[in-house]
């Protein structure tokens, strides 16, 4: 018996589903086997710092960051290693400060860190390519390639980079086994918690801040929290006139 047109189409349809289904199932299975791809992704990471929210003498974000990244506490300011720290308002925003800004504001501590510039001078001067800008804007340090020449240290207008003049291991109070330390003679700086973003966790400083003074997100995403703040409030960047296009914005 020759099948009718209708029967033929039904059989062809069922066969097609039968052919496609197992391969789809296999594809799903192989996906579920692979390590979780839960990393946070962005077109351009950025941070907004609302320094007015900072409590006086609060060091929660510094401690969280430095504990998470095995940042040593050398104890000698000349050899200091730091990823995030604070300076007085009139030191951070030198050009924006003047004599008639109230003293309380002028001396208020402002948290500062690597600005992850869109046009990073440190990357331009690095002779080995050890520091580089990722497509998502994070200015990364590849300690494997760093030769400790310190040119980036001189190039960074924000003092965001530190060099290990000595082996930092003995100066780390509590080692975090999930993150490497550095060795003698390499530069280090904030990495926007790149290793946490890969696991889908927000940066340590952002999570540690009880006042929500630090907001982190994708500046290219019009619905991100960072963009909401930037759209609503007046923000400035540190030394924007240099053309480095910093991506840490300050609400004052």
């Amino acid at each position, binding site marked *: 018996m020759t099948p009718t047109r209708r029967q033929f189409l039904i059989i062809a349809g069922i066969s097609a589903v039968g052919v496609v289904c197992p391969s789809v199932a296999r594809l799903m299975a192989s996906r579920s086997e*692979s390590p979780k791809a839960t990393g946070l992704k962005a077109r351009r990471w950025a941070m907004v710092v609302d320094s007015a929210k900072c409590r006086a003498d609060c060091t929660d974000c510094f401690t969280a960051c430095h504990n998470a990244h095995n940042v040593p506490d050398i104890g000698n300011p000349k050899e200091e290693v730091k990823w995030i720290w604070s300076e007085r308002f009139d030191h951070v925003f030198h050009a924006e400060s003047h004599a008639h800004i109230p003293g309380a504001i002028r001396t208020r501590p402002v948290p500062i860190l690597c600005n992850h510039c869109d046009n990073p001078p440190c990357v331009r001067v690095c002779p080995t390519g050890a520091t580089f800008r990722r497509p998502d804007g994070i200015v990364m340090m590849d*300690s494997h390639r760093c030769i400790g020449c310190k040119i980036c240290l001189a190039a960074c207008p924000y003092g965001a980079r530190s060099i290990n003049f000595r082996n930092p291991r003995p100066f780390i109070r509590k080692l975090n086994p999930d993150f490497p330390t550095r060795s003698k003679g390499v530069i280090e700086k904030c990495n926007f918690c790149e290793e946490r973003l890969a696991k889908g966790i927000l940066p340590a400083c952002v999570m540690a801040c009880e006042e929500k003074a630090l907001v982190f997100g994708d500046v290219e995403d019009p619905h991100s929290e960072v963009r909401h703040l930037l759209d609503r409030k007046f923000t400035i960047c540190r030394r924007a006139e240099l053309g480095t296009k910093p991506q840490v914005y300050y609400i004052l």
Partner: protein
Amino acid sequence: MKLYDRGKIIAGVVIFLILITFPFWYGKGKAVTPPQLDLDTPAIGQLAEKRCVEDAAWMRENHMKLLVAWRDSAVREGNRTYTAKDGTVVEISLTGNCLKCHSNKDRFCDRCHDYVGVKPTCWNCHIVPGEVRR
């Protein structure tokens, strides 16, 4: 042709040859036993199939190249997964993945590295699990 100070020169050449060949005749006939690598760790014991990221022979020859490729892949490209030749996908992490199974660095990594006289600088920065308690 006259060789001045013949005695001193010949003596010097003989002493030089003896010294430069010292390692060869001193070590002649002595066999250094190859290191016995210890694969007996709790994590490996629990594995159903005793297989590293790739097969053991390939890993023995190429682990250093693989680690360098992993390093560049993770740090430079932000890519933290590796697809092995048989299709399994593994996390790229020295301390988080390799050393989870090979938790006995002193009896696995170090034994062979000491034997062949290589000094990898990995551990200048990367922390050996168990070196610090959480």
